[in-house]
């Protein structure tokens, strides 16, 4: 891709980061927890976006960012108080800015009305808080235009008619003050630039140059008198001195060809000097100038800096991160996966060859295994990212929904530093959004209802993340009205999802929400939409290898709780043998394992068996038969039962021949070269190099059960 395109992508990436900083900073300001550095950072974020946007000519973005930036400038200067209404506007402005960035990047229609509305809001705040500044923040161009075209106000521009080639003659008198040099400007350079405009004759006046003994290096004694013949206009000539006009005495005058200009004093002086010595004074002058510089430079320097010693530190002082192509990381993760498999294979072969009797080899293999595990964990950690950006997005979602539903809501977050694999984070965004919408739209009461219930009018939604026993647990809780269990149960019965006389615990009723086709809203609001129910959310979480459940306390609120694997690439599994096949059962679906006793197994109907566990009866599934590895059912007493709980909360016992061991396996897709197999989630490569299939426990249980509701079909498919 070409360089400009690459920089454009960098710009939009940077915008994302800046928008994140902006959001965090503004929230902090809103809480009153911000210091001046935070306010500066917020200002810089918008300033940065504006700067880059200008370079890419994203005009609408520039325009909005400019007003936003000006308002923020006022706040950081103390000219405006960050009061609650102001902060509210700031946050909404941040949302509009984010949208403008997205549309500028991806294309789409700008919502001009909304932008203008917010611009008006921001300007109004500016006017309120700074009565002295009567006009709203000026647009970037206006000042410059005023400078360059003083006639614009008059409504007409003078027109020059030239009758002959425009050679203008200017007389320039230029005497630098010491400050000019102190800022690194150089008279000779300026003269050189002048000479680029046309033909220049320069004379240097040295009349003020004292004797060497009295020469002060920091002082400026020279002046220049120049005559320039050029086609350029006077502004171009003046422009050369743009940077130094405060630091010198400057006269630029156009010489009118038919008027003899009265000689200016400096000219007279120069002529006198010229008469004295032609070349020499100039040379001396030049020498004097150089001496000034040389003296300045030769002034004793500080001792050699310590900065030599730390090139790396300097480079990384600002940021302890590097940017890496995602493809490279993925490739690395794949290779490390292969490494793990290879290491397991090597160990296996050595074992088989009997060489493990050699203690050195045994230790070596052990060390290799530890090292490989460590490498794998470290590499997995590369793709791990904090959930913070995800939570920040939710913060905006809460604002929008609160606005749209007339609820007063505050989002509290906890544990945003918890790290999760990047792919998991990406796929969490939608489910989280749905759950938050649900919480705000259905869970939380309107402010008046809350007051009537003795609660604070502002509802709270809490979003938290934490690592627990090798998984990440994410919770969304609200302090709303909780689940109306009577209504939920009634709806489920009405929709035929449960039998009319079903006896369910409170928790079971709560989890009915996850059944498809379930929606208790009497009117489908715009927000929660039609058909986007909790069942879709649940399936998304399950597809990530996670679990989700809901708990609720009437009148006090509800909590969604999700448990997710840290990464999608590996799995903790139990390796089992079924009908001469080696299979892997995901550990997180296994509740317990047991060896069935004759007295515990009962037949139910011609084909089915159940196993008695602690007073209850659980279906027994012959995995080998189910998968078609065997044509006859096996004897349960000969095998091992794995007690499984599916995400639907159904329990079953899977019969396998034997358990081999428990280990972490690398997940390999079956889909790319073959496709989907019922009952099989994926594949993995064992230590002997052979492929073992990973069971989809939910699918197996559902396929063998009598339930044929649509959700089960979908899950099994």
């Amino acid at each position, binding site marked *: 891709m070409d360089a400009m395109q690459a920089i454009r992508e960098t710009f939009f990436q940077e915008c994302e980061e800046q928008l994140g900083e902006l959001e965090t900073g503004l929230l902090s300001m809103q809480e009153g927890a911000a210091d001046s550095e935070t306010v500066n950072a917020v200002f810089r974020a918008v300033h940065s976006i504006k700067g*880059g946007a200008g370079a890419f000519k994203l005009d609408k973005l520039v325009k909005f960012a400019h007003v936003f930036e000006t308002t923020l400038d006022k706040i950081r200067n103390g000219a405006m108080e960050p009061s609650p209404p102001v902060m509210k506007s700031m946050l909404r402005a941040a949302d509009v800015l984010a949208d403008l960035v997205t549309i500028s990047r991806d294309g789409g229609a700008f919502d001009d009305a909304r932008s203008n509305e917010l611009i008006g809001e921001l300007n109004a705040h500016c006017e309120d808080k700074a009565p002295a500044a009567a006009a709203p923040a000026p647009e970037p161009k206006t000042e*410059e235009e005023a400078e360059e075209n003083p006639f614009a106000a008059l409504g007409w521009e003078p027109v020059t008619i030239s009758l002959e080639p425009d050679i203008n003659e200017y007389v320039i008198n230029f005497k630098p003050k010491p400050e000019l040099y*102190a*800022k690194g400007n150089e008279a000779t350079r300026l003269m050189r630039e002048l000479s680029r405009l046309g033909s220049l004759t320069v004379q240097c006046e040295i009349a003020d140059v004292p004797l060497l003994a009295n020469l002060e290096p920091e002082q400026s004694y020279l002046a220049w008198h120049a005559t320039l013949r050029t086609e350029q206009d006077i502004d171009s000539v003046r422009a050369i001195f743009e940077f130094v006009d405060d630091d010198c005495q400057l006269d630029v005058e156009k010489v009118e060809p038919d008027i003899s200009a009265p000689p200016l004093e400096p000219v007279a002086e120069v002529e006198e000097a010229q008469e004295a010595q032609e070349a020499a004074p100039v040379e001396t002058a030049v020498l004097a100038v150089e001496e000034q510089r040389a003296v300045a*430079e030769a002034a*004793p320097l500080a001792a050699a800096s310590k900065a030599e010693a730390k090139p790396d530190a300097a480079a990384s002082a600002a940021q302890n991160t590097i940017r890496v192509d995602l493809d490279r990381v993925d490739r690395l993760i794949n290779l490390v996966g292969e490494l793990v498999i290879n290491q397991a294979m090597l160990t296996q072969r050595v074992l088989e060859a009997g060489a493990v009797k050699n203690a050195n080899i045994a230790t070596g293999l052990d060390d290799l295994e530890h090292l490989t595990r460590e490498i794998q964990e470290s590499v997995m950690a590369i793709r791990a990212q904090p959930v913070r950006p995800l939570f920040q997005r939710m913060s905006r979602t809460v604002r929008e929904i609160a606005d749209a539903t007339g609820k007063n809501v505050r989002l509290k977050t906890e544990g945003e530093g918890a790290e999760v694999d990047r792919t998991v984070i990406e796929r969490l965004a939608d489910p989280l959004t749905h759950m938050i919408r649900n919480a705000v739209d259905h869970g939380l009461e309107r402010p008046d209802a809350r007051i009537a219930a003795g609660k604070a009018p502002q509802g709270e939604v809490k979003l938290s993340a934490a690592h627990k026993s090798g998984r990440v647990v994410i919770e969304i809780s609200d302090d709303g009205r909780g689940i109306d269990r009577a209504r939920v149960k009634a709806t489920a019965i009405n929709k035929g999802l449960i039998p009319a006389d079903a006896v369910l615990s409170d928790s079971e009723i709560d989890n009915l929400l996850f059944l498809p086709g379930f929606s208790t809203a009497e009117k489908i609001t715009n927000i929660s939409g039609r058909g986007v129910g909790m069942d879709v959310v649940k399936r998304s979480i399950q597809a990530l290898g996670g679990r989700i459940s809901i708990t609720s306390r009437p009148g006090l609120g509800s909590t969604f709780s999700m448990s997710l694997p840290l990464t999608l690439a590996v799995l903790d599994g139990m390796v089992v043998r079924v009908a001469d096949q080696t299979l892997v059962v995901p550990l997180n679906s296994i509740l317990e394992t047991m060896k069935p006793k004759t007295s515990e197994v009962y037949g139910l109907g011609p084909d089915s068996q159940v196993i008695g566990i602690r007073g209850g009866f659980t279906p027994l599934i012959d995995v080998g038969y189910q998968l078609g590895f065997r044509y006859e059912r096996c004897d349960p007493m000969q095998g091992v039962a794995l007690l499984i709980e599916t995400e639907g909360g159904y329990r079953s016992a899977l019969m396998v021949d034997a358990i081999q061991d428990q280990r972490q396996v690398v997940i390999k897709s079956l889909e790319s070269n073959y496709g989907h197999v019922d009952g099989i989630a994926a594949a993995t490569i064992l230590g002997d190099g052979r492929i073992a299939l990973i069971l989809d426990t939910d699918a197996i249980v559902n396929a063998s059960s009598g339930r044929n509701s649509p959700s089960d079909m979908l899950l099994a498919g």
Partner: protein
Amino acid sequence: MSMKILTVDDSRTMRDMLRMALSGAGFDVVQAVDGMDGLDVLEREAPDLVITDINMPKMDGFGFIEGARKKDKFRVTPILVLTTESDPEKKMRAKTAGATGWIIKPFDPVKLVDVIRRVAA
């Protein structure tokens, strides 16, 4: 030997664009990410000219210029500031701090080189 230019800006986008414009014009480019980093790189690389942003974390452009001017070696090194508009106050402040000149962003690569030539050999 081509001129060495130090660019100091916290925005990656801006750094990339400056690098592209300047190396394209044959200059040798070194970069820093904020004022403090800028002073470090200044010492280490001794550039012939510096282009710096104003708004940066840790130490802003004004701080950087003042710091640079305090070092004898860099007292008269040309330093140009990047500014988004011709705000006379900001220009004044930059000049008081010791800036040699300014560049308005978004910058035109051709104009950038012109300004550079105006202030450096």
